[in-house]
């Protein structure tokens, strides 16, 4: 009924979408796990990453290296914005209850949205991938856009990087410890505030990187923050709050059910990822993997 090549190509493009979702939701999940902050303006940092990538690439006048520099520079812009918000405002609010934090970060999202409008204006922006990543490539007889193959390569790299940071570095281990017992880490003489700040920066970096990576595949517009933040929160919930590997599993579930759903029932494919989410949460209310909350 469904051809093998059709299925394989849908799985591949679904997985490549999942890589972007993973990078963004891993950042959200990490901040949730370590700081216990449901960061609603995470999506705005993703949008800022995309717009910055556009500016950096345009500044280089369409040089093929534009995207590569954008991938390096745009996350730094997101981190800079995140650092200002965290140091100036958020760091004074960590002890507040979650509802307050949601309201606060939601407010920041509105402010950042207007800020993006002031800086970049309301026009659509568009970034062209370097020639080596344009067009489609044939993999085992399946035609897949080269850029999607590139995403399939970047995603695991980021996952490996996150594993290294959380498991092997001092800051990662302290961050995990602080997530479990903040006071105890403080008593041991570690500057918890600085650890939180560093963890928050990692989250911002991932949001900005996600935005820069998505930039050549879509219209860079105001409002892209809303779309991503809803999906990212769903993925984090499905995967298990604060669990980065949960974010990976959730992203793959989300991306692949949508792309394969399009083969099965194209008219109603929108509902498949959400349906999968509902089923998972009915069977496992705390998410697929262990939640750190």
């Amino acid at each position: 009924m469904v051809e093998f090549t059709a299925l394989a190509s849908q799985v591949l493009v679904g997985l490549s979408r999942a890589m972007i979702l993973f990078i963004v939701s891993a950042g959200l999940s990490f901040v949730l796990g370590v700081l216990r902050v449901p960061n609603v303006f995470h999506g705005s940092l993703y949008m800022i990453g995309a717009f910055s990538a556009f500016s950096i690439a345009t500044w280089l006048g369409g040089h093929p290296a534009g995207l590569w520099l954008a991938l390096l520079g745009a996350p730094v812009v997101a981190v800079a914005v995140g650092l200002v918000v965290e140091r100036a405002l958020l760091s004074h609010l960590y002890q507040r209850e979650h509802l307050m934090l949601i309201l606060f970060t939601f407010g920041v999202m509105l402010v950042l949205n207007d800020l993006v409008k002031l800086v970049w204006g309301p026009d659509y922006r568009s970034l062209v991938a370097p020639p080596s990543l344009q067009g489609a490539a044939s993999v085992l007889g399946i035609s897949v856009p080269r850029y999607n193959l590139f995403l399939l390569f970047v995603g695991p790299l980021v996952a490996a990087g996150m594993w290294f940071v959380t498991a092997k570095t001092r800051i990662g281990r302290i961050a995990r410890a602080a997530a479990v017992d903040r006071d105890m880490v403080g008593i041991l003489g570690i500057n918890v505030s600085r650890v939180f700040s560093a963890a928050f920066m990692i989250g911002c970096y991932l949001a900005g990187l996600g935005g820069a990576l998505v930039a050549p595949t879509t219209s860079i517009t105001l409002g892209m923050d809303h779309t991503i933040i809803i999906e990212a929160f769903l993925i984090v919930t499905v995967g298990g709050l604060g669990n980065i590997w949960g974010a990976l599993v959730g992203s793959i579930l989300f991306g692949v059910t949508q792309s394969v759903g399009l083969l099965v029932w194209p008219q109603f494919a929108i509902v498949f990822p959400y349906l999968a989410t509902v089923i998972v949460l009915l069977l496992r209310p705390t998410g697929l993997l262990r939640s750190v909350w």
Partner: protein
Amino acid sequence: MTAKRSVVLLVLVLTIGMGARPGPLQAQAPRLDRAIKVGIIDTYSGPPAVFGNDALNGFKLALAEINKDGVLGARIEFVTRDERFSPEVGLSMARELVLQERVDLLVGTINSATALAISAYAKEQKVPFLVWISKSEKITGQSGHRYVFSTGENTAMAGRAIAEALARKPYTRYWIGAEDYEYGHSITNSFWRFMKRMKPEVTLAGQSWWRTGEPDLVPYVTAIANARPDAVFFGTGGAGMTNVLRVLKATGMSSRTPAVIHTAIDHAVLRPLGTAAPEGVLGTIDYLWYYPETPANQNFVKAFQAAYGGPPGFPAFHGYNTAHFIAEAIRKARSLDREKFVDALEGLKINTPVGEVEMRACDHQAVLPLFIGTTKKIPQYEFLVATDIATLRGEQVMPTCDDIRKARGS
């Protein structure tokens, strides 16, 4: 009260800014004892703001010309409200503009759902409402009435034009991919209705619908490519359109399967895409700044470019015509009476950048030509433009007055 009025006036003059030059006082005695006040409701935030601002710029450019000599000795002034792409917000702003700002007439919007909501209110209040971007055929079709006018083309015209073009091609197995909102449904229904009428043997291989703002259309397009239809019709606009075009090129589908999209040849869509836009996509539109190459169009483009730094899009063309329709109708009516204004606007003909355009009396729909072209990269531009342009006259693609009467059930 008068103090408040003058403050409002001052703010207005400041808002109008550089768009309208403060001309010298009229030499002859003014025949209207006050300024003509237009209330504009449109989307000025979020992605659709690109189109809202373009229409407003076209309107302001026309006002600068009109207010040099005035209309019956009076200036046309305007206030804007941002409806944030929400029909509820748009409706409450229409109320505020009519009841508190006491505007003479309403103009807007990009959102078809908002246009329909304001239209119902305009009918109830007997206030003229000129729709300038929204394309739902219901506006001047089944939901049309004495007080609503459309200065832009609509989905009935576009759907018919596309069907006319495709009926001559050998494709019979179609796929429909569209965005799930009023415009997406309206343009798709219209296209398929005319397609079936003009070429009964066409079949629908399948359809896919996505939500507005869907960032990644690659899985949608690869799934369509796998179904191997003869041609694909996309019912999408704005940022969604940009995404479809980009993905058609990235997946290589545009070189294998013909794609057709209303407004695919829109400059606002093709310019930001640059060379990421695919060649060979068939598109329709009612305004192109580089075609026809008549003095009227070239002068309009030159003036617009000088004022706003870029060429006008189709919304600017609609905005420009809307202002001239308003000015001419008031001159013809010789008063600001709303009933006389409506009577004067019915059947009124004005000169536009693309030639004479009539406001058809039976349905209040501007009789605009539609251009059909194919996207192509040519050396002198960094972006794609439409080539092999064919023109369909408005009368060829508009529903007949009988069709309109039937649709309105009268």
